[in-house]
C-alpha cells in the first residue's frame, strides 16, 4: 500500500527514509488550553492577542536508510514534537515531511490501554491500532505474554495489574513490531531493575534491526554509541548537526554555559 504523493517542494531521493524541509509546528494557545464555552467567549471579546507558539521552526534534515540519528537538546526544545511529526501524529504548520517506510514509535507504551479489558483483549486492540493484521497479532500473542511475564494475569482485567505489569505489557507490545523506521523517546526506564536489563537488550536488538532510527534521549552515552549523526535542538531550532561526539560536546558546553549564566543571574539578584 502506498500513498500518492503530491507535487514536490521535496526532491524524492530513494535513499532517504525521512526528508524534512523547513519544518515548523505552531501551537495556537487559543485552543491548547482546556477550553470551555465561557472561556472562548471571553477570548473572543478580549483584546489581548494570543501569541502563537512555535514548538519547531525551520527544521530541515534527512535520514539516509540505515542511518541512526540522535536528537538532543534541553527540555522543551521540541524533541518530542519532532518525533510526533515524524510519526505522522502532528502535521507541520510550515514546510513538509516525507517518510518512506513504516514508522513505529516506542512512544506508545501502554497508550490506549483499557483498564476494563483483559490483557489478551488489550493486545488485540493495540494490534488493531498499530494496523497489524489479526493473524499476525495472534501469532505474536504468546511471546508478548511471555516477555511481559504476566502469567495467569493475562485474562484478568487490566485494572488489576500493577503499574510495573502495565509498563511491561506496553513495552512488549510496542517492541513486537519490526518497523522500517524506529522512533525512540526515552523509554528505557521501564519497570524493575530486572526488566530494565531485559528491555534495554530488546531495544538494542531493535536498533540493530531497524533500517533507520531517530533517537531522542538525555543519555549521551546512547547517542555516541548508537548514532552516526546527531542534531542539537534548542527552542525549536537546529543549533548544530553533525558527528554525534561533536554535537554532544557542543550541547554539554552550551548547557554548562546556560547553567553558569543562571547562577550568575541568581548571584546578582541575591546581592
Amino acid at each position, binding site marked *: 500500500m502506498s500513498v500518492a504523493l503530491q507535487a514536490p*517542494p521535496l526532491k524524492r531521493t530513494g535513499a532517504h527514509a525521512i526528508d524534512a524541509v523547513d519544518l515548523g509546528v505552531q501551537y495556537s494557545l487559543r485552543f491548547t488550553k482546556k477550553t*470551555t464555552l465561557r472561556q472562548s467567549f471571553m477570548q473572543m471579546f478580549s483584546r489581548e492577542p494570543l501569541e502563537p507558539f512555535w514548538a519547531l521552526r525551520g527544521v530541515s534534515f534527512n535520514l539516509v536508510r540505515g542511518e541512526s540519528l540522535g536528537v538532543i537538546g534541553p527540555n522543551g526544545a521540541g524533541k518530542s514534537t519532532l518525533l510526533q511529526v515524524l510519526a505522522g501524529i502532528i502535521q507541520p504548520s510550515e514546510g513538509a515531511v516525507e517518510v518512506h517506510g513504516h514508522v513505529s514509535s516506542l512512544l506508545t507504551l501502554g497508550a490506549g490501554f483499557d483498564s*476494563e479489558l483483559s490483557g489478551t483483549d488489550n493486545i488485540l*486492540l493495540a494490534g488493531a491500532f498499530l494496523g*497489524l*493484521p489479526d493473524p499476525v497479532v495472534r501469532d505474536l500473542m504468546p511471546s508478548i505474554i511471555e516477555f511481559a511475564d504476566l502469567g495467569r494475569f493475562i485474562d484478568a482485567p487490566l485494572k488489576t495489574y500493577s503499574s510495573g505489569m502495565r509498563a511491561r505489557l506496553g513495552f512488549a507490545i510496542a517492541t513486537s513490531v519490526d518497523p522500517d523506521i524506529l522512533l525512540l523517546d526515552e523509554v528505557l526506564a521501564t519497570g524493575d531493575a530486572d526488566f530494565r536489563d531485559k528491555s534495554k537488550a530488546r531495544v538494542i536488538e531493535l536498533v540493530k534491526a531497524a533500517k533507520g532510527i531517530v533517537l531522542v534521549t538525555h543519555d549521551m552515552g546512547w547517542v555516541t554509541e548508537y548514532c552516526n549523526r546527531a542534531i542539537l535542538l534548542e527552542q525549536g531550532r537546529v543549533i548544530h548537526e553533525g558527528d554525534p561526539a561533536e554535537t554532544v560536546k557542543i550541547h554539554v558546553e552550551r548547557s554548562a554555559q546556560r547553567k553558569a549564566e543562571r547562577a550568575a543571574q541568581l548571584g546578582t539578584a541575591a546581592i
Partner: protein
Amino acid sequence: MLPFAAMSTTSEVPAEFRHAATRPGPFTLLGEALADIFSRRRLVGYLVRADIKKKGADTFLGNLWWVLDPLLQMVVYVVFVSLIFDRATPDYPLFVLAAILPWKWFTSSVNDATTSVTSQGSLIRQIQFPKIVLPMAATSAAVVGFVFSLIPLVAIMLFFPHRFSPYLLLIPVVAVVQFLFTLGVGFIVAGVNVFFRDLGNVLRHFLRLWFYLSPGLYSLQMLESSTFFEQNPALLRILQLNPFATLFEGFRSVIYGSPDGGPHLPDFGALAALAVVSLVLIAIGGIIFKRLEPMYAKVL
C-alpha cells in the same frame, strides 16, 4: 526471545506518507474520511467489541440494564401521561415504548460519540491512526444496545397481542435511516467536543428539549387536530420537518400503528427523504471532523 513481526508485510498502515502545511479541499477530506473508515474497519470492529464487553461489566445487573432501562422509563411516562394527565390513548405503554427505544438509542449514541475522541487523548498524542474510527465505533456499538432493547419490546408486545403484526420486520428499515442520521450527528459532536468540552452539558438539555418537541409521547395527528396548531400551521410544519418526527412516526407505524387501527406501512417517502438528508449530514460531519483532525493531537 520475542520475535518481531515485520510491519511491512500486510499492514493496514500506509508504508509512506507526506505531510505538508496544506489545507485540503472538502472533497479531498470527504474521500479521506471514507478511505480511513474502510481501511481500518477491523479496528472499528475491535473498538465495538471492546465497548460491548465493557458496558455492563461494572454494574451489578450488567447488561440486564439494556432491558430494564427502557421498561422503567416506559412506566414513568405511562404513569405520568395516562394517570396524571388522564389522556386516554389505547395501548399507551406500547405507543410510548415505540418512541423510547429509538430515542434511548439516539441519546446513548450521541453521548458516546461526544466523548469518543476526547477520552482517547493519550492514545491520540502517541500513535497515528485515523481518528474518525472513534465516533464511527461509538455510534456502531450503540446499535447493539438498541438490538438488545428490542427484548423488552417483545415482552410488552405479549400484553397487546392484537398489535402483533409482520410489519415488525420493517423495524430495521427505519433503524437504518436513524443510524445514518446518528452517524452524521456523531461525527460533528465528536470533533467539536475536542474544542468545547462542555458540549456534553449543552447537549444534555438540548436533547431533552428535542425529545419533548418530537412526537414521542404524542403523535403528529394529535397536534394536527389541536386548535393551536390549526391556527399556526407554520409551527406545525416546523415540527413535521424534525427528523425525529419522521423516525418516531416510522417506528410507531410498524410497531403500534394508529390508536384505532393496527400497524401499517411506514411513510417510505418521508424516510427516503430523511435518508438523503442524513447522507448529506454524514458528508458534512465527515468534512468537519477531518478538517479539525490535525489539531486533535495538539489540543488533547
